[in-house]
């Protein structure tokens, strides 16, 4: 302790010499405390506590691939999402229309939904249930300690599950001019939530735009 009791050695009162030395060694620390509180407040307020998070996306590099002859994909598995303004999402299952006749055929399938948990998530999750349950049970087993593997090997296990997946949806994300940036992030996020193995952001074609013109508002 910095405070030294001034009365120490009080028994030697008779000696004049000693008395002269009896200055209080106490230092007033109040200004120091003031300054420190100020600095602490300053640093506390300027600290950026929550670092921003990032979400990685991979876009198909289409510079060298002939896009007219894309890989053959099962029409039944193809889920087309078309993002539009006012937080609307249109979706249909099947091949995108390539001519006016297709437009008529696809129109019947076109449905409208939104970004809520009963909207797009329900649709995607229903198509992806098999894979989702597989990933979910693996994750749960690690959390509860049933299987003892590290977080990294869990991630690589999930990756393998996703690679082997043969029945889940292939989601094509398209958007018209009215969509907001938020919408695309929401959809990609939804893909991550539902553990969708295959999805891509692709350009909308002219027939789909035609389809949208008559879509339910």
């Amino acid at each position, binding site marked *: *302790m*910095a*405070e030294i009791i001034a009365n120490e050695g009080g028994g030697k009162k008779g000696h004049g010499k000693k008395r002269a030395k009896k200055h209080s060694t*106490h230092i007033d*620390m*109040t200004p*120091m*405390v003031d300054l*420190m*509180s100020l*600095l*602490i407040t300053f*640093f*506390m307020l*300027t*600290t*950026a506590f929550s*670092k*921003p*998070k*990032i*979400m*990685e*996306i*991979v*876009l*198909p*590099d*289409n*510079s060298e691939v002939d896009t007219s002859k894309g890989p053959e994909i099962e029409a039944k598995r193809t889920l087309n999402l078309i*993002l539009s303004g006012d937080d609307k999402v249109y979706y249909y299952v099947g091949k995108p229309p390539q001519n006016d006749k297709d437009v008529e055929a696809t129109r019947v399938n076109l449905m409208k939904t939104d970004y809520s*948990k*009963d909207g797009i*998530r*329900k649709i995607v*999750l*229903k198509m992806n*249930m098999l894979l*989702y*349950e597989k990933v*979910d049970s693996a994750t749960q087993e690690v959390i509860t300690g049933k299987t003892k593997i590290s977080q990294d090997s869990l991630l690589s296990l999930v990756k393998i599950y996703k690679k082997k997946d043969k029945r889940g949806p292939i989601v094509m994300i398209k*958007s018209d*001019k009215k*969509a*907001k*940036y*938020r*919408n*695309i*992030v*929401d959809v*990609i*996020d939804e893909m*991550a*939530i539902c553990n969708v193995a295959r999805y891509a*952001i692709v350009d909308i074609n002219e027939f789909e735009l035609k389809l949208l013109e008559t879509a339910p508002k």
Partner: protein
Amino acid sequence: MPKLKMHHASPRIDMTPMVDLFTLLLTFFMLTTSFKPTEAVIVDTPNSISEKTAPDKNIMMIYISKDNKIYFNVDNGLDSTTHVRVKVLEEMGKQYGVTFTAKEKAEFEKLGSFGVPMKDMKSWIDAKDGVEREKYNTGIPCDTANNYKDNQLNKWVLYSRFHNQGIEAAVKGDGDAKYETAKIVFDILLENKLSRFNLTTNMEKVEIKLGDYKGK
């Protein structure tokens, strides 16, 4: 007599432990602080479930503001002695016929993100404070027409990549920005062979109860 003695006791409080504690806290905050970088524009990012934290070094950031303007920022990479930022600026200057003095280059290195076309770059650097700089932030031109001729964002990305191969790209867009604008940015990144990049988001936890979805 003992009662009287009580009155004589000093009312001073021993502040030493308090000072000790404060010093400790102060040291902690000083060491953990990383100052919020001054950004030219406020961007309200959308939410995602991603838990990956953004790298704070070796990154070039493209901002898309609410009113669809594009801002750019590039750091010096892992080793700040390489002065990547200055090199990129010099290269841009060469392209658009602007020469910068040594003082301007040093000033530019200290500044953060910008949304300035090259023709205003000199005045933006020379401006005396942030308020004055504000008016030059009209967004980086990135016209995709004319075969990327006056696409300054494309050049910024290109030269940043040229001077720092390992640099990562991140897009920080406002949720209310148009997708069209984001698409232009994505296309530019693709053009520069950056098909893998990051989107800055806020974290938001999502829990799924399978029972809600299993019916039917």
